[in-house]
Structures are given as C-alpha cells and as structure tokens.
C-alpha cells in the first residue's frame, strides 16, 4: 500500500524573514565585529533590492512510525543509512519531519548574471545572502514545528541533512520519495543536486524524549561548514 503524507508548506517574503547581517558576515569568513567597508554597505544595498528575486518557500511531511537502529532509520519500509552520529542525535524520535526549503531560482540567476558580467564580488555577495535566506527560512519552519509540538508535550531535535555528518548526499533520493513531486518547487537532479541551488533538505526528530543537541563542530573537520558555530 502506498502511504501518502499530508504536506505542510510555508511561504515567506524577504521582509518577513528580517535577515540579519551577522550570519552573512560569518559565512563570508569575517568576524562580525571586524568587517570593514565596502562590504557592509554592499550587503545592505543588495538586501534592500533582493525581494523581487526571492521565491522563498519550504515545508515538510510528518512521518511515523520511525524505527531507529544503530546506523539506520527505517521509515515505511525505506532504510536511510544515516550513520551512527545522526541516529544518535535523532535518538528517541517517535516521528520525523522530512523537509525541504528554498530561496528560489532568482537569487542564483542574479548572482550568476553578476559573475558572467565579471562582477564577481557582487555575485558572491548575492550568493551568500541566498544561503542565509534559505537557512533563515528553515529556522522559521523549524520553530513553527517546535512550537506546535511543544503544545502537545513533544520536543524537537536539531535538523540533520544528507551530506553532513557522514550521511551520504545521495540519500536525498529516498528523502524526496516521501515528498510530493516538485514539492515547494524543489527538484533533485541525477547527481542529487537540488534545484534551485539555494535549497536545503533534511530530517527533524520529534518525540517526548528527544533532545535538541547543538551541532558538535569540535568533532568535525569541515572548517567552513555553514552550520559551524552559526547556531
């Protein structure tokens, strides 16, 4: 029998997300207290005009039951090889939100246009803002889930994505098999690349006994990972 899950979706405007500059500085490598012009001004100017290029949406399906083993998670007969770390972080999950979220195609197109014209710095700034937009949108959705389920006495884990913590990026195919086709306008290529580029996917665990664990960056050697010391 094919199980269908009810998707929950959200849309955001750029204004609603109230993007902060600190994560933008951090993703660029800067210490937020030590950023010099022209970068702050360029970032502010770009943020001020980026709204029409955004198509920010995201959503999830809630799946249950979920069976956690030593290195795998089994959901409705599909085995996710998430590895030891991720199973540990998602321990005690009774159900899971399988999500995707995107900032839309327009931002990457704008960034590419800058680059094609030789304006690499402008293109890079737009690109980084796009990354921060999708992460901020996903923070919002994460919070909505957390608030909704806390009313029912359930806790929420941090979010975990294929491609991190030794969980293969190719496992996104299994993840996307639980989402409606072209969910939130996000699709997956043969090489497991999401389109639009500024998109994320992953799991959030829910249950009475789950714990929210900060990302354990000290145990990881990926020095410029987007999650490193960001949260």
């Amino acid at each position, binding site marked *: 029998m094919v199980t269908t899950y009810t998707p929950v979706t959200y849309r955001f405007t750029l204004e609603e997300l109230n993007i902060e500059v600190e994560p933008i500085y951090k993703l*660029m*490598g*800067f210490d937020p207290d030590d950023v*010099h*012009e*022209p*970068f702050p001004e360029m970032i502010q100017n770009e943020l001020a005009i980026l709204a029409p290029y955004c198509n920010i949406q995201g959503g999830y399906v809630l799946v249950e039951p979920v069976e956690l083993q030593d290195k795998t998670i089994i959901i409705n007969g599909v085995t996710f090889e998430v590895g030891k770390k991720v199973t540990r972080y998602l321990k005690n999950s009774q159900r899971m939100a399988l999500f995707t979220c995107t900032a839309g195609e327009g931002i990457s197109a704008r960034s*590419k246009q800058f*680059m094609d014209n*030789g304006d*690499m*710095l402008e*293109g*890079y*700034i737009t*690109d980084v803002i796009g990354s921060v937009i999708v992460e901020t949108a996903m923070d919002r959705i994460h919070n909505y889930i957390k608030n909704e389920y806390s009313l029912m006495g359930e806790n929420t884990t941090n979010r975990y994505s294929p*491609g991190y913590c030794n969980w*293969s*990026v*190719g496992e996104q195919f299994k993840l996307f098999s639980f989402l409606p086709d072209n969910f939130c306008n996000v699709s997956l*290529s*043969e*090489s*497991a*690349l999401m389109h639009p*580029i500024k998109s994320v996917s992953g799991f959030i665990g829910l249950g009475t006994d789950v714990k929210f664990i900060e990302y354990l960056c000290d145990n990881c050697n*990926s020095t*410029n990972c987007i999650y490193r010391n960001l949260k």
Partner: protein
Amino acid sequence: MEQLYSQLADCIEFGKINQAAPYPPQFKGMPGADELTQQLLAEGASAGDILSKALIIGMEKIGVKFRENKVFVPQVLMSAKAMSTALVYLKPLFAQNGSDRKGTFIIGTVEGDLHDIGKNLVAMMVEGNGYEVIDLGTDVTAEKFMAAGKEHPDAVIGMSALLTTTMGNMEKIVREIKAAEPNRKVCIGGAPVNDAFAKKIGADSYNPDPQGVVEFLNAMAS
C-alpha cells in the same frame, strides 16, 4: 618605474580599483590600479612586465593571505576587481603578443554540478598570476574538456566538484582524459575532494585552494 610597479602591486593586493574608489581607506585619494596601469603603459612598460612585476606580485600576496586565513573571499574578490581593471588595458596587448602569458589553463565544474564560486575564484587567481584561462563554466562533460584540450594542446586542465555525488563524475572525466591523452596534466579541487582521491583517480594534483593551483601550474611551466 619600479616605484610604480610596487604601487600597482599594492593596489592589487588591497583591492584599490581607481582613484575615485574610497576603499581601502588607507589608499583614499591615491591613484588605483586603473590610473597606475595607464601610467606604466604611457611610460613604456610592456604588458608582460606589468603582469609579472605588479599584478602577479599582488595576486600572489593575496593568495597566500587567503590560504593563511588572514583574508576571506570578499577581499580576494576586491583584489580581483582591481586586477580586472588593469587587465582591461593589458589583454589587447597580450592578444598581440601571446608569449607574455605563462601558459593556458582550462577549468570547469564537472558534469552534474552547478557550483561555480570556488571554480571562479580559482580561475581568477590563475589569470591574475599570468595564465590565459579558458573557463568552460559548470556542468562540463568529458567531451567538452577534451574538445577544449584539443584547441589548447599544452593547457593544463582543472576541475572542481562540490558534492560527493559529482566526485564520481570527476573520476569518470579524469579517466577518460587520461585514457585519450596520458600526458595531459589534470588537477582537481573542491570542498569534498582530497589528495587520496586525486591519487586514486589518476589526477596529477589536488589543491585545497587557488594558490595551490597557481603553484602547481608554475611548477609545470618552469
């Protein structure tokens, strides 16, 4: 003249584009890459000398600082902007006298992968260090790399990949190139790539950062 070369090298290193640019603050009101390049040419400097005595020196300094985490991508791109300003005047002269360049570098992000920032950064650093760069863009197949190789028989090929899934395509492309042209030099890079992977797939070099690529190319060219 030496003073002008050194001033221009500083403009490249610190990203001073032209006199009107207010950045960096310590260069405010001073001539930038634009004016200094024009002045050097007017005083009879050759495009090759401007490249080797100023642009390459500035780009190398910023490349090393980037490797050492003393500066970040935006500052490197400011330098690139200053360098592009100078290259506007030099490129037509290179076209007349190709030998001013140290060699040719073909670069692309491999098939299935659309990431281009890292690849662009490498391309720009290599260009600033005196090479002609043929940028094939993203999602580049073995056929495209090989066709560009045919047009530039002495070029080194560089490939970038950002996802572990597209590293598989990188392996396929490197093997195809090496099967057709065993002597063609190929170097690879990108966040999930490492030295062991380069050895496994038969690439000649792995470099974690653009400066590494420049050093590899310099070693090949010397």
